[in-house]
């Protein structure tokens, strides 16, 4: 007959065992990180300094992102994927929201925007309550966790041409792009995140992750302006299954695709109205390539 205490110990130890593999491994020590405390950031005309962000980080960020910036703060265990997203591991220097090509570091402005915007459907709120200076300091602080910034420069931001006027032809052309590069494999033919590959998606650390559902009112993680949507599929979201389409979608086609994606979205839009008038049908996943 086990005592109550023994039962509790058993439960706790099995919980600990279960938690072990999901914990990302902190590979850097406090000492390694401290050597980079001189890190700076430049956002517009504001210069951020890592050392000035220590207080804000300890007060507002450490609970999720952890002392070592590895995303293992004490709250992290309460955010199991895929329902929640685990806090970012800053030591890896891999970021979803970038204006720079896949495989490159984001710009300081990108990190600044992420802090400002927060992430929809995650525990990261918009931190626009911080002053611009404080946010720039936090950008430098985030950078000081990863050695990547010592050896590499951020990538060159992609060029986004001026947004053209929406026309029904462009929406139709966007549908062709959607079919050609097969966005529906994950996002589904109606953007409902129910494509054939949606159920098996995992992030770079092997954790389950959901494709973006355009139809349920969610906002894209990296911003919801037309420019943001353009940027998301052209740069990809590093660390997730979302690849970069920069080699396969021309700038003009990219705008067409943005307009077509808008037709899925819950929010009212000109594109949605036009699609209704056009009577656009979802793409046919079984149609041969190039014949929609």
């Amino acid at each position, binding site marked *: 007959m086990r005592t109550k205490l023994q039962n509790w110990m058993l439960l706790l130890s099995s919980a600990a065992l279960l938690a072990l593999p999901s914990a990302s491994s902190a*590979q850097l020590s406090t000492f390694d990180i401290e050597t980079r405390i001189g890190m700076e950031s430049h956002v517009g005309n504001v210069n951020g300094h890592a050392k000035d962000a220590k207080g804000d980080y300890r007060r507002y960020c450490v609970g999720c992102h952890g002392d070592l910036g590895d995303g293992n703060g004490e709250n992290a265990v309460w955010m199991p994927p895929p329902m929640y997203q685990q806090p970012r591991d800053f*030591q*890896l*220097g*891999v970021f979803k929201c970038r204006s720079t090509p*896949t*495989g*490159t570091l984001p710009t300081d402005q990108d990190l600044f925007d992420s802090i400002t915007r927060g992430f929809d459907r995650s525990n990261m709120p918009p931190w626009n309550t911080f002053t611009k200076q404080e946010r720039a300091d936090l950008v430098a602080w985030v950078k000081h966790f990863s*050695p*990547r910034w010592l050896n*590499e420069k951020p990538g060159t931001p992609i060029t986004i041409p001026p947004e053209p006027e929406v026309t029904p032809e462009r929406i139709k052309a966007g549908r062709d792009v959607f079919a*050609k*590069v*097969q966005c529906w*494999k*994950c996002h589904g033919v109606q953007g409902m995140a129910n494509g*054939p*590959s949606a159920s*098996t*998606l*995992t992030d*770079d650390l092997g954790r389950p992750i959901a494709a973006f559902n355009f139809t349920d009112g969610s906002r894209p993680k990296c911003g919801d302006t037309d420019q943001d949507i353009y940027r998301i599929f052209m740069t*990809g979201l*590093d660390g*997730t*299954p*979302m*690849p*970069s*389409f*920069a*080699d*396969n979608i021309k700038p003009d086609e990219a705008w067409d695709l943005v307009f077509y994606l808008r037709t899925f979205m819950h929010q009212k839009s000109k594109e949605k109205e036009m699609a209704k008038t056009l009577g656009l049908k979802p793409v046919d996943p*079984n149609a041969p*390539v190039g014949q929609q």
Partner: protein
Amino acid sequence: MRNRHNYPGLLSALVLICCAALILGQKVNAAGNGKITGTVKLDGPAPHMRGIDMSKDPYCVKAHASDPAHLETYVAGANGGLENVVLYISDWSGSALVSTAVPVFDQKNCVYSPHVLALDPGETFKVTTSDQTAHNIHPLPNPMVNVGWNQSQPPGAPPIEKSWKNPEIIPVQCNIHPWMHGWFVVVKGPYATTDSNGSYTIDNVPPGSYTVTAWQEAAGTQTAKVTVAAGGSGTADFTFKAK
């Protein structure tokens, strides 16, 4: 008591001297013309390789209609020869060798061909697609060692040229077809990959004594000492046990 404390010191000094002698003694010549050959075998029967359910994508099912796809964790020939084993000189002290040919990593019939691609750091390789279905090519290096990326390759997409900066064994996957799994094995110096008979030849080996390492994706690594005379060849055979 005192003596016992000195042993580790003495031993490490000895090892250091030996290493120094080895490094100084072997005149590594980039244009070495020796070679190391051998065979890699699997001990016992090849483990059952599970079939792959490709029903997610009708294109892939059709491509394998007459030739069902199986996992490629162990690919053993009739004589027990083990394919896709990478052999390299793990104590290579010369620079990385960059070949002039550009190796190709193809996505064909919803599997990677080859399943394992060995490369030198800095060696350019090409990722191509022969399929009429979209893939995303997504290598997963340790971000502390190499920089990962994730690019789409819909049907007819142009090849992607890439290279890896540092030695590392990098898994690669397609998120659209989760069964697609392959490896970039980035090693410094001359290397070879076993063919379907399990045989290999590492070319361009300068004379010297080396440690040859054999890497198999599931069985792990084994090493052997090989001496290569000027213009001659050394031999190293390996036998792996399936895990």
